[in-house]
């Protein structure tokens, strides 16, 4: 094992891991306000990439504008999902809602396939594709974009939840929806907001990753599952656990692919998840007692 290839695997892992982290953050935000896992989160990621491609190719828009529109479009769709699929049945048990989100994910995937076909698309890298040599490893400029934008989003969310009164109101809904309603927080609006933020974060992840891993109508399935695994890895409900879980998962996956075999790349993520669930069901950064108070 030589240093440059180790470094190369690490860089690849961090890049992919950042996207897992963003997907996991999306899961976390919705879980925290509603107590449900939104299995359409992967589809939000897919839409971020696919809509960017669509806006660039079909409408001939410049890439930055295409991405902004794709993110805005996905955010809007997140709002629609909440209004049309979740709100009318909000009082149902969580498991029903989770199954509804699975239905929504199948619907979105199907619609994407009808609209854009089954082909794989690539988004051009944001600033060229000439690799920079970094201690012998090849560093793609897009990698830096992915890491920087992910960090920015994480910092933005951190500020939102720890500084803004709206962020705190959203947290309040997760701690105690009844008390939140009694202090005058519109819980419905907060749930809507959480779907929009999750869709936004997911779409950004999808758009910045598309130049590296390519995109197609069904990338959401695997990204969603990996993001979910990252969530569990980091401890469900903990935003920083989610982000860290994503990075850890990405790096382990990349190291596994490099040193063992890339054939087992996807399997590795779930093996890690299973082992962790046996050893430490509350996740690496989760509360040990597993009790939500």
């Amino acid at each position, binding site marked *: 094992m030589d240093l440059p290839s180790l470094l190369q695997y690490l860089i690849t892992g961090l890049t992919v891991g950042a996207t897992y982290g963003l997907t996991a953050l999306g899961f976390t935000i919705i879980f925290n306000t509603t107590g449900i896992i939104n299995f359409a989160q992967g589809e939000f990621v897919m839409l971020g990439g696919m809509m960017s491609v669509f806006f660039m190719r079909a409408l001939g828009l410049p890439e930055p504008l295409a991405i902004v529109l794709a993110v805005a479009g996905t955010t809007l769709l997140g709002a629609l999902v909440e209004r049309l699929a979740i709100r009318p049945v909000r009082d149902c048990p969580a498991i029903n809602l989770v199954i509804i989100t699975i239905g929504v994910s199948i619907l979105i995937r199907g619609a994407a396939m009808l609209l854009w076909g089954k082909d794989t698309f690539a988004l051009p890298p944001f600033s060229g594709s000439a690799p920079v040599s970094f201690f012998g490893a090849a560093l793609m400029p897009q990698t830096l974009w992915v890491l920087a934008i992910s960090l920015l989003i994480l910092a933005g969310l951190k500020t939102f939840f720890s500084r803004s009164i709206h962020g705190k109101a959203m947290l309040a809904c997760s701690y105690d929806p009844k*008390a939140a309603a*009694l202090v005058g927080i519109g819980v*419905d609006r907060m749930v809507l907001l959480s779907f929009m933020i999750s869709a936004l974060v997911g779409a950004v992840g999808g758009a910045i990753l598309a130049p590296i891993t390519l995109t197609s109508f069904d990338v959401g399935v695997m990204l969603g599952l990996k993001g979910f695994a990252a969530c569990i890895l980091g401890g469900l409900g903990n935003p920083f656990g989610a982000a860290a879980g994503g990075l850890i998962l990405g790096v382990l996956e990349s190291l596994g692919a490099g040193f063992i075999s890339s054939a087992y790349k996807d399997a590795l993520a779930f093996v890690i998840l299973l082992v962790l669930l046996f050893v430490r069901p509350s996740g690496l950064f989760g509360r040990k007692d597993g009790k939500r108070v």
Partner: protein
Amino acid sequence: METPLLEITGLDVFYGKIHALRQVSLNVRQGEIVSLIGGNGAGKTTLLCTISGLIRASAGTIAFAGADISRRAPEKIVQGGVSHVPEGRLVFSPLTVADNLRLGAYGRSGASRAETRAEAAEDLERIMDMFPVLRERRKQAAGTLSGGEQQMLAIGRALMARPRMLLLDEPGMGLAPLVTREIFRHIVTLRDSLGLTVLLVEQNARRALKIADRGYVLETGRVTLTGASQDLLADRDVQRAYLGRDVDSASPG
């Protein structure tokens, strides 16, 4: 006579098939403290939750300051001037004391956002003056507070919405008698100094009736008795059922 601030008429509430409140009528006048007493499962908490909009009534009206609020969403009812301090306090445990209080003003809409924020900051100071222990612990997570402090926080949080009326559900639950007495003293002060109207639910009927002007007795979802607090305290049925006094053996015949 002036119209009551809160006027409930013919309220029916169901939990699934359980008829939790039957034709409940009750009123609270401006500046009054009214106590609602009754055993477990009598429907006291249900009544408060129906007033604050957490539960929908299937029949009847709830008029607050002349407007029917029975179909409004909970946040609109808070904005309209009714704050409910729920059973078990329900503070936001991981958030700081100060944040809990600030969230109490979340639903408030002023002329401008800056103005609302300035008002909320003023109220925050006033409430921390009223409950100095909250000032001391303002940076602490609310979950680390003692039961009595959490109750003060829950009341303070409700006051941040600048309500005209407070609904208090078992403020003394699980607290040491001394602490309870302090909380009850605060309730009286709120009425006397801020002119707040209070509807109080309490297991301990004697304590509740002592600070109240009037009382209602709720039994299996019905109002069975109502009157001035002294009259209820002296009532033989109330004494036997809720004040733990064995009337028959004390005065035979």
